[in-house]
């Protein structure tokens, strides 16, 4: 069973998405703060982290670096509602998996499978 941690400050969004993934066979947990996400990563192993690019105190990229100190093998997928083409191109060019909200749950599942298969996002 693939273990997924969803991190997004939009509670209703992230909780609904976690439930939908759970219905499809994923072990999905969610956090709405960077602090809670870090605590969950310290307490439990995850295969993939879906991370909102814009969190209130830490950016998604900053939180990724913090998480990797505890879970260096964790893979990451970034979510954003911003849809800025420049941001998308920059993050994509750095090898990140990026999805723009709204995104279909099937697309998220495909990306999770892809990121696990390719092992991307695990490098520091």
């Amino acid at each position, binding site marked *: 069973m693939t273990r997924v941690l969803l991190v997004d400050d*939009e509670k*209703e*969004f992230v909780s*609904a998405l976690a439930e*939908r993934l759970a*219905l499809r066979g994923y072990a999905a947990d969610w956090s709405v703060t960077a602090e809670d996400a870090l605590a969950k990563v310290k307490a439990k192993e995850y295969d993939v982290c879906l991370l909102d690019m814009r969190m209130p105190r830490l950016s998604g990229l900053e939180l990724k670096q913090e998480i990797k100190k505890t879970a260096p093998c964790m893979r990451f997928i970034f979510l954003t509602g*911003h*849809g800025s083409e420049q941001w998308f191109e920059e993050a994509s060019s750095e090898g990140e998996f990026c999805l723009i*909200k*709204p995104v279909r749950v099937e697309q998220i599942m495909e990306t999770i499978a892809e990121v696990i298969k390719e092992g991307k996002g695990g490098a520091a």
Partner: protein
Amino acid sequence: MSAGSNPGWDSLAFCGRMNAHISHKIRNILATVSETAGLLDDLVEMAEEQDGAGNCGRLRELSGRIVEQIDRGQKVVQRMNQFAHSVDTAWAEVDINDAAGLMASLSSNMPYPRAVDYRPADGTITVNTSPFLLEQLLYVLLRFAFDGLTPEQGLTLATRSTDRGGAVEFSGVAGLSGRRLPDEALKLAGALDLDLELRADQGIILVELDHNLAD
């Protein structure tokens, strides 16, 4: 004209940034509604499998309607965001296809809209111009063109490359005889240093831009 040196433009750029931020928030709200509707659909599907159809068909129809409206809202917000970013810089490299496509899409939000058949040229047609003022000009021309059309009539908006740069052509514009281009359009054409022509007998309005208008 450049952002940072003109208070009027700075205010416009501020307005654009605020609208971009707001559209970002609306996008997040729509994503949340979309995910919640998706979860509702999942639960209805599970109930169907466990207990038979019952009233599930009606529930699925209603959740489907919510998803359709979210998709519609997302498209509007996408265009709002794109338009808000058009004041990021006073002058920029602009793909005429992007500017004309955006205004063709936004025209459906105007009062008394008419059908616009948008036909972009293949590839990109890049010119150096003011994205915001160019979009404003296309908006003014669309409104002018719509005034001459009945609700059943539509117009064609097409782009093409030219030796000088590119062109935007409004065609099928009925009811142009005896009319002249709006002063606002002529002023904007002057500010943008582009050619604007009304061919009333052919039902055509033509906008021609050079590659490097700001040079």
